């Protein structure tokens, strides 16, 4: 069974995923990141470096550091849009004889296909190292507006890198596949893709057989970087106002600001305010200067509102272009790191009046969808079931409600928690609650409530013949076993005699859906009062066992302690006994604590007596010598 790869080959960043143990998962590169910059360079030593290494040396080697090559793949040099982009580059380009584009790196000229292939080669090597096997089958994604020539060029790049490119699919289609849309019924899906540098919106008609792109739109220069820049500008502005110093001229300060801005943006996705604290950011004749600002989420939203508005306007326009209404969109998928910003999510939700799909990491969702497609195609080729769908064939059931037994004080002690995959078995050792108890009753319970009486009893049985012994000494093992058909067998056995009793409950998981839901809901509704009850019982049990051990101690060692202390303990025992009968949790806790403290005095009194008696003896021995 060959491993597959799904590659989201981006303009700035490339990500890739595979299927591991039946689950699609984004993979890390050799540098330990899931994000690989789509940059390649020929260093001054003549070494070819790809990804973050190429990025790190870019400033020293601008002519031989190639980036944004996706903007040129499969396109003509004379294309006006290409011409506009070419002007922004730091590396050399020229027209090929066939009208395509050529890029100079070192002394050689390369096509955008060859450059893309070099990026894909690194991905192949890194992924093979990570997965520990050779890789061949891949699915690569491209923007929905790529034409045939651009798609063919993307496929060729993959083939040059040594892959067997099963298919080149649209990025939004991959996102829809990742969520499994269209497997059962046709759906209109809108993919809102807000990346680092670009914004794309695509409307898809997804059905079990086909995925049709109904419309696409976008902004070539709108992305998360703009959000960072707004924060940087705000800090620069504040600092200039306060200190009169322009930090934008200082490369290290600017670098620190960039990192701080990105960090602040990320932190404000979960926190309502963040601190931008950069000590010694610069210095002048007066000495060092520090930067310490507070930025709130509201402030960030205010300064970036127009960026989000722009994306929403683009969505509106795209929907209008195909004469659709936003209400006709069945599902919305969020793609790209910028959609992690709460304001972005909220605006999308507000606009559509429904929750967008965001459970899959928006930075990985395209690569994950590509990996799923690669796995489906490979499985078909190999005549097997795709990994990850095996579960549905095997039909392993899960337990809808927890199973447990009633223990001392009417508590439901869970043996097998709900959602456990069956068949399974679990066992636990219990003991007796009273001295010389010769039998135990096993009450098998189903449900989530902590008190036994609030759950459904599946059956009861008695294990007797336990040899008389003090409480807590006998060991009774209770074993729960559920087979694949949901038949529950409960066996209780006394470890000392080996005597056992059992009960078989058929259809223990065969409750109707309504019944299960009702029981789950009840558990939720009563959660708070149940918790109080559970605590009360637990504390009562603790109190009882403390009373038991105190009385035993007094009986065994009563003659060795002072009559005062004996009286004190007896009084506290009787206090606790009274408190235990009531429902006041705090009182039970306090009286338990009080008794426990008095009990500790026994130890110190006895230790003191012994020490007092020891000392003269030691002296005597010494004098003997």
């Amino acid at each position, binding site marked *: 069974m060959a491993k597959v790869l799904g590659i989201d080959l981006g303009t700035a960043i490339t990500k890739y995923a595979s299927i591991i*143990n039946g689950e699609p998962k984004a993979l890390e590169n050799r*540098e*330990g990141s899931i994000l690989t910059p789509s940059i390649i360079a020929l*260093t*001054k030593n003549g070494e070819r*470096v790809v990804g973050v*290494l*190429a*990025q*790190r*040396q*870019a*400033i*020293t080697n601008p002519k031989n550091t190639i980036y944004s090559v996706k903007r040129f793949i499969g396109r003509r040099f004379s294309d006006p849009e290409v011409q506009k982009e070419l002007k922004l580059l730091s590396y050399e380009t020229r027209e090929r004889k066939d009208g395509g584009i050529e890029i100079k790196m070192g002394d050689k000229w390369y096509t955008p296909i060859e450059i893309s292939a070099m990026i894909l080669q690194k991905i192949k090597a890194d992924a093979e190292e990570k997965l520990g096997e050779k890789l061949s089958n891949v699915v690569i994604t491209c923007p929905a507006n790529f034409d045939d020539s651009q798609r063919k060029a993307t496929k060729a790049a993959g083939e040059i890198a040594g892959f067997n490119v099963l298919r080149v699919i649209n990025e939004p289609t991959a996102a829809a596949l990742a969520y499994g849309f269209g497997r059962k019924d046709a759906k209109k899906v809108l993919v809102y893709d807000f990346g680092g540098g670009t914004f794309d919106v695509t409307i898809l008609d997804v059905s079990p057989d086909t995925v049709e792109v109904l419309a696409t739109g976008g902004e070539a220069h709108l992305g998360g970087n703009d959000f960072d820049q707004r924060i940087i500008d705000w800090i620069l502005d504040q600092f200039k106002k306060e200190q009169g110093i322009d930090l934008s001229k200082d*490369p*290290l300060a600017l*670098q620190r600001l960039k990192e701080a801005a990105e960090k602040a943006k990320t932190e404000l996705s979960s926190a309502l305010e963040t601190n931008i604290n*950069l*000590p*010694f950011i610069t*210095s002048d004749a007066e*000495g*060092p200067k520090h930067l310490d600002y507070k930025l709130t989420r509201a402030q960030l939203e205010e300064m970036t509102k127009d960026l989000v508005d722009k994306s929403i306007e683009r969505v509106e326009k795209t929907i209008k272009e195909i004469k659709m209404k936003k209400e006709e969109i069945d599902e919305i998928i969020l793609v790209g790191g910028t959609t992690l910003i709460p304001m972005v999510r909220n605006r999308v939700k507000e606009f559509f009046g429904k929750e967008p799909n965001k459970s899959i990491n928006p930075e990985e969702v395209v690569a994950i969808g590509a990996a799923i497609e690669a796995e489906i195609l490979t499985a078909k080729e190999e005549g097997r079931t795709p990994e990850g769908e095996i579960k549905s064939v095997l039909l392993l059931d899960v337990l809808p409600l927890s199973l447990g037994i009633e223990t001392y004080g009417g508590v439901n002690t869970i043996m097998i928690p709900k959602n456990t995959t069956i068949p399974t078995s679990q066992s636990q050792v219990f003991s007796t609650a009273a001295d010389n108890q010769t039998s135990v009753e096993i009450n098998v319970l189903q449900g989530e409530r902590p008190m036994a009486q609030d759950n459904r009893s599946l059956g009861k049985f008695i294990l007797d013949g336990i040899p008389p012994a003090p409480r807590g000494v006998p060991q009774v093992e209770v074993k729960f076993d559920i087979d694949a058909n949901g038949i529950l067998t409960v066996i209780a056995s006394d470890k000392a005699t080996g005597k056992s009793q059992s009960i078989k409950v058929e259809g223990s998981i065969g409750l109707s859906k309504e019944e299960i839901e009702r029981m789950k809901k009840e558990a939720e509704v009563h959660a708070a009062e149940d918790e109080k009850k559970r605590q009360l019982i637990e504390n009562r049990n603790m109190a009882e066992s403390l009373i038991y051990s105190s009385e035993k101690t007094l009986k065994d060692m009563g003659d060795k302690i002072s009559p005062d202390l004996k009286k004190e303990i007896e009084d506290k025992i009787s206090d606790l006994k009274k408190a235990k009968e009531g429902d006041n949790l705090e009182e039970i806790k306090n009286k338990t604590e009080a008794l426990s403290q008095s009990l500790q005095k026994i130890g110190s009194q006895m230790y003191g007596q012994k020490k007092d008696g020891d000392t003269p003896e030691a002296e005597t021995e010494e004098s003997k010598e």
Partner: protein
Amino acid sequence: MTEEKKDEEIEKKLEECEKKKQEFFLGWQREKADFINYKKKEGERIIELAEAIKKDMLLKILPTLDSFNLAEKNIPTKEKDDKNLKGLLLIKKQLEEFLKNQGVEEIPCDKKFDPRLHEAIGEIVDKDKEKEGMIAEELEKGYRFNGIVIRPAKVKVYKLKND
């Protein structure tokens, strides 16, 4: 005849049963092996995860050390012997010791620029051809954790002046 037929049927059924049994046995064996392998992999994954969490936390501590370094750089010569400042620098040393004990080591910046270890954020022009590509200045320290670069050193690199 009917007896023979019955025998044949039983034999056929037995054969089918044997086949099914074998199939189930192999499936069960495979499932069991898969589970053991999964547990092994999960164990490795937990170790990896723990390392990743540690790395993440160490990365978040580093800016504090950067600030200490910047503070140290900014101390005027005449105040270098101040006892309070010395005490503060000892706190920095504590932090460095802590990081060292966790497996964090500094990346040296005394030789040629190497994108595996360094990130160039500026250049310094110099006539000396020998210096070309060498590190001119370390702006922020870089670190390795268990031998792997977790943060490259930020440096300025010498560039040859073309007359």
